[in-house]
């Protein structure tokens, strides 16, 4: 855990003292618009009237306790999870329900999973080039050139010929980020990208993500890493029991949470 944890009622905390957020990157144009979505798993009400707008270049961090619906919300954005009602639009286009139009839209939305999900039977390089070749129609040479540049950027270039099982968790997750970036997505979704990693590897993955955020990538990040939220988020969304309880800038949220639910959650983080 980072030392800059929420300071709760500490009056001396200045909401503007730490890293300022790269608001310059945000153009204010809405890219992901989630409106009044509901999601049921049988009788269980997983998402309750959730709305969320992510503007171009913005980094939105979703936090909350387990079972609060934050991962479900993240997964509805590229329809790996269907919704019961409501609408989701990406860059003005409503999410198609299935088939080729859905596949085409998914290509515009990068996704990074908790368990990496690299293609186990393909090499690192093939993992990164598959999408560009099969979906974007790039030539193998072109795709490999871009892939190697991306792998270089996340520090895995020299492992390109290996298989995923031969890499550490942190390395696999960085490859997964490169794989998503290779599609040149409009927005990147991170579904608890560091939850399956040990502390040393968490940093190497977060560094890549902070780098992306600084470059102006639009990101939706579900995480328990409060340090990342403080460093990179433009906005924090706090969820509990399937609802968005609070939405605020990171400093405001961590230093002066408005809701009791958020105060309670943050106080528990401090103790641990």
């Amino acid at each position, binding site marked *: 855990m980072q030392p800059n944890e929420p300071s709760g009622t500490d009056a001396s905390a200045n909401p503007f003292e730490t890293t300022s957020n790269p608001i310059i990157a945000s153009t204010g144009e809405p890219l992901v618009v989630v409106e009044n979505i509901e999601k049921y798993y049988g009788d269980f009400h997983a998402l309750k009237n959730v709305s969320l707008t992510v503007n171009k270049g913005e980094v939105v961090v979703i936090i909350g306790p387990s079972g609060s619906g934050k991962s479900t919300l993240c997964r509805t954005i590229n329809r*790996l999870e269907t919704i019961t009602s409501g609408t989701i639009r990406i860059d003005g286009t409503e999410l198609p329900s299935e088939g080729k139009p859905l*596949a085409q839209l998914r290509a515009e939305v990068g*996704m990074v999973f908790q*368990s990496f*999900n690299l*293609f*186990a039977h393909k090499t690192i390089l093939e993992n990164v080039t*598959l999408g560009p070749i099969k979906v974007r129609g790039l030539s193998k040479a072109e795709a490999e050139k871009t892939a190697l540049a991306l792998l270089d950027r996340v520090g895995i270039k020299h492992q390109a010929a290996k298989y995923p099982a031969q890499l550490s968790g942190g390395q696999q997750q960085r490859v997964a980020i490169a794989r*998503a970036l290779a599609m040149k997505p409009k927005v990147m979704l991170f579904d608890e990208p560091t939850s399956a990693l040990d502390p040393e590897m968490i940093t190497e993955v977060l560094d890549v993500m902070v780098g992306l955020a600084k470059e102006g990538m639009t990101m939706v990040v579900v995480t328990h890493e409060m340090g990342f939220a403080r460093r990179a988020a433009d906005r924090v969304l706090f969820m509990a029991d399937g609802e968005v309880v609070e939405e605020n800038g990171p400093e405001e949220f961590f230093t002066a949470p408005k809701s009791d639910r958020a105060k309670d959650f943050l106080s528990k983080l401090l103790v641990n």
Partner: protein
Amino acid sequence: MDTLIDNSDVFIAGFRTTIYLFLISAVGALVLGVVIGAMRVAPVKAANVFGTVYVNTVRNTPLTLLMFFFAFGYDKLGLIDLSYFTLAAVALSMYTASYVAETIRSGINTVPVGQAEAARAIGLPFTQTLGLIVLPQAFRAVVPPMVSVFVALLKNTTIAAGFSVAEAGAIRATLSERGEPQLVVLLWVAAIFVALVMILSLVQNRLEKKWAVSR
């Protein structure tokens, strides 16, 4: 040994037909089986139903009965004339496909769901998700049971002998007319079958070794 050498013409002709029948049926069963297996996991209700009904009817029908249908029932349907060999290959393909489909489906179930999710997330449609990501990994997981299915197919080809297809199972009948000792002939036929199955086991070993490193 004399029995084998003196009648090599009959043995060669018989096993040649067996091998042809096996190869053609194996390819047919593999293609049809993959399609049926894919239908059972496809996100289309009608395909699921068709796949399930196919497996449950064809697999539950004795192969002999299926052969009977193709040998005697088919020409009553008034479709194009096909040789008994072709009909036998069709019957064997259809029958074996139901086992291939189930083997593949169990292989698909061993592939973590995250693999398919990651494939969909980069924009691959269902067919490519299945063909490029899920099936290759499913095949790797089911090499031993899949080879067993094809061993069974190889031996099942002898049933075609009952329907005028002169393959290895018919060697005994032919040679008993030449006055050869039947037991010896049968032992030779069995020995050659064992040798052929060993070739399949060899293929299995090679595939397991080849795919073991890449996981």
